[in-house]
């Protein structure tokens, strides 16, 4: 009897934590998203579904933009992060940890500071664009800041470690002899990669994708620092509604809309990649 209970008892702190810091606040927010009123007169529970329709009507543009930016940033992070992780895991030999550290070093600096330094780097007369303009390689009115690419690149850069680390972890843990086995069984280097390394590392790409896509879609710092009025993301809207307009119900409603959209996205993503297969390899 005691044996049977032990796992549940051990899980108790975890459950308590979840209840206290996840379920309770979420329930509070759900309730808040259905209230009416304003910050001065107070918010009253009216089960006002209107908050949701308003959120969708007013901010669907920013919502879709955010999803698009998040997806683009995630794809860029895969394109940069996968080769980096692959190289460190397979080619860096005994210097693996050095390269990992070098990769992570910039991220010891605060997120906001890092983004601001990007702003300086990419500014119209900054070290990169200024130089290129001075030597005539770029037209003088060329700008990166305040454009969608600036925001997307900022997002991809800021969340790169979340992509690299999970991919690196699977590649590192994988038995490197299977690559030789593939060569032995007549696979070219490309075939060995496509048929063996890539499928085995998919769980890492899956995890990295989630860990990049979710925070980039909800991010507002990059859009605020690197973007302009045309690149506002849904995170900025939520932040403004909360902290500037103090319209808590709308802010809460947008939050849940975003959450629902992300969940749908994640589930379709998991289905497309075949979670079952992904999880199975991971469990091994």
């Amino acid at each position, binding site marked *: 009897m005691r044996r049977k209970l032990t796992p549940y008892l051990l899980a108790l702190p975890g459950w308590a934590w979840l209840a206290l810091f996840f379920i309770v606040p979420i329930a509070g927010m759900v309730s808040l998203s259905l209230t009416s009123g304003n910050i001065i007169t107070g918010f009253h529970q009216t089960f006002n579904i209107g908050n949701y329709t308003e959120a969708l009507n007013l901010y669907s543009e920013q919502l879709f933009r955010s999803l698009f930016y998040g997806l683009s940033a995630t794809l860029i992070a895969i394109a940069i992060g996968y080769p980096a992780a692959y190289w460190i895991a397979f080619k860096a030999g005994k210097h693996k940890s050095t390269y990992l550290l070098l990769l992570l070093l910039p991220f010891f600096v605060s997120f906001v500071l890092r983004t601001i330094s990007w702003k300086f780097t990419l500014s119209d007369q900054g070290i990169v664009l200024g130089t290129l303009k001075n030597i005539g390689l770029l037209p003088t009115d060329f700008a990166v800041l305040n454009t969608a690419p600036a925001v997307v690149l900022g997002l991809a850069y800021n969340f790169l470690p979340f992509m690299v680390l999970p991919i690196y972890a699977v590649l590192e843990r994988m038995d490197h002899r299977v690559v030789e086995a593939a060569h032995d069984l007549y696979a070219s280097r490309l075939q060995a990669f496509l048929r063996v390394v890539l499928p085995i590392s998919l769980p890492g790409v899956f995890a990295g994708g989630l860990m990049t896509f979710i925070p980039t879609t909800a991010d507002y710092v990059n859009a605020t620092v690197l973007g302009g009025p045309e690149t506002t993301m849904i995170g900025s809207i939520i932040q403004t509604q909360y902290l500037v307009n103090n319209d808590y119900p709308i802010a809460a409603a947008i939050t849940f809309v975003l959450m629902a959209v992300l969940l749908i996205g994640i589930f379709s993503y998991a289905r497309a990649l075949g979670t079952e*297969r992904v999880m199975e390899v991971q469990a091994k």
Partner: protein
Amino acid sequence: MGDPVTATTEAPATPTAGPKTEAVPAISLSGVTKTFHSGRETITAVGHLDLDIEAGEFFSLLGPSGCGKTTTMRMIAGFEEPTTGVVRLDGDDVTDVAPNHRDVNMVFQSYALFPHLSVAENVAFGLKRKKVKAAEIKRRIDEMLELVELGGHGKRKPSQLSGGQRQRVALARALVNQPRALLLDEPLAALDLKLRQAMQIELKRIQRDIGITFVYVTHDQGEALTMSDRIAVMNGGYVEQLGTPAEIYEHPATRFVAGFIGTSNLLTGTAANPTSDGAEVRLDCGQHVLIGQRLTEGERADLTVRPEKITISTDAPDAGLSRVRGTVTDTVYLGSSTHYTVRLDDGTEIVVYQQNARDLSATDVTTGRGSEVWLSWRPSHSYLLSDSPQGGPHRA
């Protein structure tokens, strides 16, 4: 050995005939060396190899850990490029050919199965790369899984198999391609004794049935002796001796081989009274033994004699035999046989295995601990040992 050969066009060379047959060797290494550089250190993994492996042969590379067995095999498979020398498969120089273009397959020590693919997909991998037709692939997979007795397991993942089953998948995955040679790197090392013995018989059966050349790496001398047609005993990157299991066991060529294969007694002395067909060897303890090999007067001689070739007795043996006197210091009764340890005057210990043809339960005071006994053996049963590997330059 007279293997019943089936299903191959090329008849395997009779292994006992040695490497001097007319046919082109299936695998041939000439003057192959391999050095690795790690930091400032240079590691000689393979010192100098000249090997010819005949088609259809079960050939073993046997030696202690680190002697270069895996490196040799990886050079045959194409994963390592020899520092010098030439690798040939069926006479074709493949030294610079990539592994995926070599018609040999390897069974890895760790199996290296593809974890994301099912058993059947693992086995199909090589055939798919070779663009074999789907129907043909299916037929060959079924046939191969049947051969390794994994008939109903095609849909399972490697993680759902036992160690022995994984081993057989690895074997099937390589064999299904019908390579010219199969390279097996300690394929049974991870299995427990019972399973290992069962798999040894299984491997030997499969090799006989399909007649493919097997190159088998092992550091287990028993495994090599029971399975192989020929064995290359390696040490420190060199081949110490090449021969059939019986040749290697009965006539060890070097000190190392005598010590590594089975138990052997080592005696040292100086040659005396050489004749046309032998000599006496005056042992360091002062006694004389006979040897059937040529020696020159005064030459230092190391000789070896296997424990089971020695007869233990209380009466003085025939003068035509090698004979020494000593004191029994230890006896171990093993039922069918008894192992004696006998000490000579100078402290040399000699191990003797004696079949228990007599009933020893009544009284055995004659050869019990502390008794003075005679040991004798035929001069042709002791062999001179050399120090340095035959193939290459002398190496400590």
